């Protein structure tokens, strides 16, 4: 197998192929009759997935270096290149994306009824955008893709969304736009500061990272700009209010992608850019207090607000705020376990919350409402759906043996050392998570079957099982045997942590850091 892949030069073209296939696919989708669109889209996303799968094995474990790396000139006069490459963290994100997309297409199969061609084309364009963000090693390219992704999502929400889709779509757009524009200024500032210092004007990630010392006292502002852009995307409390609206109004597949992948871009941005670029700023006591504080507030706040949501999708949306709080806590704790845990949560939140949104979609497809109060006693009518919903909810709650637990546990145990109090508060999140999801579960699948509309709903169809089965498999796999994932990210996380700590020591030795050594 590896030999075969070597022969066809897999490693050289795989990332390019991943970026190109969906675009070509999108054109293909636009050119076929509406009835065929979903089949073509499914085919394209499956091909995409199959192309990406060997990455899992050809990826070299144990090195933090960027792999599959190569570059083509784009606007060379400005030091802008098409530069791609992945490390362990991006690898997982890429695979999560390629796995989610075929499911997203399948999940839209009957849900989307009009304007099929553009819908699937947009999904495919979105795929390229998301993958591009995860593989880009050029800040210009990163920024462009980061923004470009907004458009397909904006249309997906705005055209195929629910009743308040207009408001949700523009809110989503402007919110994200606000953060990212400031990041644009920051990227430019770094570009010039580094360029002025070194004489080499380039947007290359490595180049900027190596010479980031040139930004000097501007570090805080630049970090702030990056952090704001990412924090909005994450979304961190209190920048989260776009999320419930977007999630609720978006069509199922868009919700899945939003929760599963788009949110991860924020945390990915922190891991890839904000932290390595500005270690001393990021780890400045004040910043730490703010970030960890907001993360912890987000965990508890998200959970509490989720608890009282009447709308199931909104509930899941707020639960994302809570889960992503764990990720932020883990990243900022900056220990091996916590960062690895954060990345595991990024993956497993994608899977579990993705599945929850699929289920929410399936429920609303059947009942044309997402109000929790409209359901009740469904376990009797649709036992299969109820089982899956239970399993997924449990994984979201973080029941040991499921993916949710592994990530949360690692984050908490890793964060305990640096921030015991914050971790203790964060750990209460596990209680609240159980509260909101079990309550919702009870009101949906348990309790009296007292609404006549609910009495004759069809159980999961084969297609729906096909959507959910891979997610369930991942839930258990990551829950029971996360080692392969951990192996793949270990070197990257270790590298990240040492870089941050070294640079933090070398760039600006704060008086506080000496005290923390013992």
């Amino acid at each position: 197998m590896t030999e075969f892949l070597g022969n066809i030069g897999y490693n050289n073209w795989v990332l390019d192929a991943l970026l190109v296939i969906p675009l070509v696919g999108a054109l293909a989708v636009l050119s076929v009759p509406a009835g065929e669109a979903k089949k073509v889209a499914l085919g394209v996303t499956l091909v995409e997935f199959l192309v990406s799968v060997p990455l899992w094995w050809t990826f070299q474990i144990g090195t933090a270096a960027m792999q599959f790396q190569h570059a083509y000139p784009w606007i060379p006069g400005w030091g802008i290149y098409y530069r791609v490459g992945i490390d362990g963290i991006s690898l997982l994100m890429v695979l999560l994306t390629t796995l989610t997309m075929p499911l997203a297409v399948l999940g839209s199969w009957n849900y989307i009824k009009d304007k099929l061609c553009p819908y699937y084309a947009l999904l495919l364009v979105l795929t390229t955008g998301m993958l591009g963000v995860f593989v880009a090693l050029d800040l210009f390219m990163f920024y462009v893709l980061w923004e470009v992704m907004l458009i397909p999502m904006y249309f997906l929400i705005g055209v195929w969304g629910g009743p308040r889709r207009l408001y949700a779509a523009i809110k989503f757009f402007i919110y994200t736009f606000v953060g990212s524009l400031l990041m644009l200024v920051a990227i430019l500032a770094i570009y010039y500061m580094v360029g002025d210092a070194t004489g080499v004007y380039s947007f290359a990630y490595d180049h900027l990272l190596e010479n980031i010392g040139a930004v000097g006292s501007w570090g805080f502002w630049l970090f702030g700009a990056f952090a704001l852009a990412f924090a909005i995307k994450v979304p961190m409390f209190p920048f989260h209010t776009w999320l419930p609206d977007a999630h609720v109004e978006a069509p199922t597949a868009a919700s899945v992608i939003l929760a599963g992948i788009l949110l991860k871009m924020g945390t990915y941005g922190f891991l890839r850019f904000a932290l390595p670029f500005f270690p001393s700023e990021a780890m400045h006591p004040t910043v730490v207090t703010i970030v960890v504080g907001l993360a912890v507030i987000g965990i508890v706040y998200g959970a509490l607000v989720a608890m009282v949501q009447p709308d199931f999708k909104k509930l899941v949306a707020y639960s994302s705020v809570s889960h992503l709080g764990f990720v932020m806590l883990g990243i900022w704790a900056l220990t091996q376990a916590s960062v690895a845990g954060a990345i595991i949560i990024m993956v497993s939140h994608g899977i579990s919350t993705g599945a929850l949104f699929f289920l929410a979609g399936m429920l609303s497809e059947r009942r044309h409402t997402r109000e929790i109060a409209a359901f009740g006693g469904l376990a009797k009518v649709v036992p299969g759906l109820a089982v899956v919903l239970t399993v997924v909810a449990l994984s979201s709650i973080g029941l040991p043996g499921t993916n949710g637990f592994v990530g949360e546990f690692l984050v908490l145990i890793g964060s305990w050392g640096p921030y015991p109090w914050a971790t203790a508060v964060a750990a209460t999140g596990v209680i609240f998570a159980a509260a909101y999801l079990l309550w919702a579960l009870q009101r949906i699948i348990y309790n009296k079957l007292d609404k006549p509309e609910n009495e004759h709903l069809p159980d999961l169809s084969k297609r729906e099982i096909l959507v959910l089965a891979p997610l369930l498999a991942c839930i258990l796999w990551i829950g029971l045997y996360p080692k392969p994932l951990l192996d793949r990210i270990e070197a990257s996380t270790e590298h990240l942590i040492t870089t941050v700590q070294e640079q933090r020591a070398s760039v600006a030795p704060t008086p506080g850091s000496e005290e923390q050594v013992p």
Partner: protein
Amino acid sequence: MPTSVGWVWLVVVLPFLGFLANGLISLVKPQAKSAVSFIGVGVLVAAFAVAVAVVAGLSQDQQGAPYVLTYWSWMTVGGLEIAAALQVDQLSAVMLIVVTGVSALIHVFSVGYMRDDPGYPRYFAFLNLFVFFMVLLVLGASFPVMFVGWEGVGLCSYLLIGFWYLDKVNADAGKKAFLMNRIGDFGFLIAMFLIFQATGSLAFTEVFEAAPEAFTINGEIITLITWALLRGGAGKSAQIPLYTWLPDAMAGPTPVSALIHAATMVTAGVYLVARSNILFAMAPVSSVVVATVGAVTALFAATIALKQWDIKKVLAYSTVSQLGYMFLGVGVGAYAGGIFHLVTHAFFKALLFLGSGSVIFALHRAYHATHSHDDAQDMRNMGGMRKFMPWTFAVMWVATFAIAGIPGLSGFFSKDGILAVAFARGHDHPVFYLLWLMGVIAALLTAFYMTRLMLYTFHGPSRTGEGEQRHLAEAPWVMTGPLVVLALGSIFAGVLNLPHVLPNPGWLEHWLEPVTELSHRYWNEVHLAASTEWLLMAVATAIAVAGMAGAVIMLKPEKLKAAKEAPAETGIQKVLLKKWYVDEIYDALIVRPTVWMSRNVLWKFFDAGVIDGAMVNGSAWTARAVGFVGSAVQTGRLAWYLLVFVIGTLVLLRAVM
């Protein structure tokens, strides 16, 4: 390592396979009941057999060291290494036998009890799953693996309490159980973090080995750890203040109550303390807290049990109370004693629950036949059941004697063992005398309320309706059979750990020595003169007899009225019947305020109002408003435009020059 010990993974896997098979059947072909019974019971019997073989293998072994069987690396990051590993040692062996044995019996019983239920396959699937997690809990070789089982049993408890999910009360009860457990699990988590930080590991063997160096006796860290562990244990084992879920958990099918909420799962907290005995031994203050929590719970729950009318509620509070005893035991350093009571309690409490289940089953069938909607669990609707159910009647009395502490039966020895140690600790600190006294009073109450239960249920005239009486009958043999086995256990389990004054004493204590010896050096040796020991036994006997006699004298089953005609309770009786209003207090102080605050303050005010309304939409609105003002300034009149122009000119020229 003995060969048979290596088979231990089968004990874990078999129930899980049973779960998968039954789960599949429940989704695909729910009417295949015989296959379900065969699989459900079969895997348990097989698991029990393997467990026996494992323990037999272990008992032949002379090394005494625990066997840790590692299967795969679960979470390995940086310094953290958690393996998916099982640990077979003396403590887990005892638990393994009890869990698989009692489970097997209850599975058999369930075949009869649940036979008419449409959710039959689902029931067995959940029950199998429960056994899987329970076995994992007792066999886990590290805190996290144990935690998997720990949360897993909570899950199964949730699923089974809410088994008849169409009724909101049941679903509520399941959710409550899970949440209360989670509150406890929070403590478990914190304990794990602290332990990992202090010792760098979470595997039992490594942690306990490192403990003497890693912690200072009565130090801050160890006290925190044990407090956190206690919180975890209190959640799972229904101790104050997290006990309220257990009585509600009676909403599940009765065999579930017997298995999960009496014999096995709820004892996990005791197991946890016993497992971590060295940690608790190094934190004497925490041990006293454990003992106090246990004693207070024992007494408090017993008072509530006095006035309950629901037969299962009586047993539920009784369970809470008995669990308090176990905590008292492990809290005073009688780890073997605590485990011993756990074992005997598993027998007689399972028996009591199953017996009551048998009664309920009979009553339920009768009501079903006459289409009556009376409460099949209310003792006021029972009475005189001995006529109809002689076997049940007999074995229930056996269990009652056992729990009340009639000498010779298992409960007498196990309870006495704990109280004796508590009394002996009085030498070290007088507070233990107080705890002992509370235990004794609780024993008195236990004898009283159990006798009350028996009197109202089986004695006196039947208060069941005339029409129904014709339908009352003894349960089938699949149900009475397990009862008889459990009755034998309730009688004879006492020999496992006889007091020192009797021949062949302390077998269990000796057996558990390899596990508990870690903590020996932190506890003073217990010294009780033989005479004192005899005296204590005499006191215990007197208490038991007094309690039972008191009940017989004071209670008049013949005067009791059926539930429908019964007058409302008043005064302290009502307070007891309402369980000291603890549920209501929790509801008013914690649950409602939290939900109210979340909905009105956090969500509607802060999230929708402040963040989204004032900040996000507010800034958009402000920008637009400014725009409208600007737009209004654009009046269309040239004079005004010229004026603006000239003002701009002046400002600009001023700026330039």
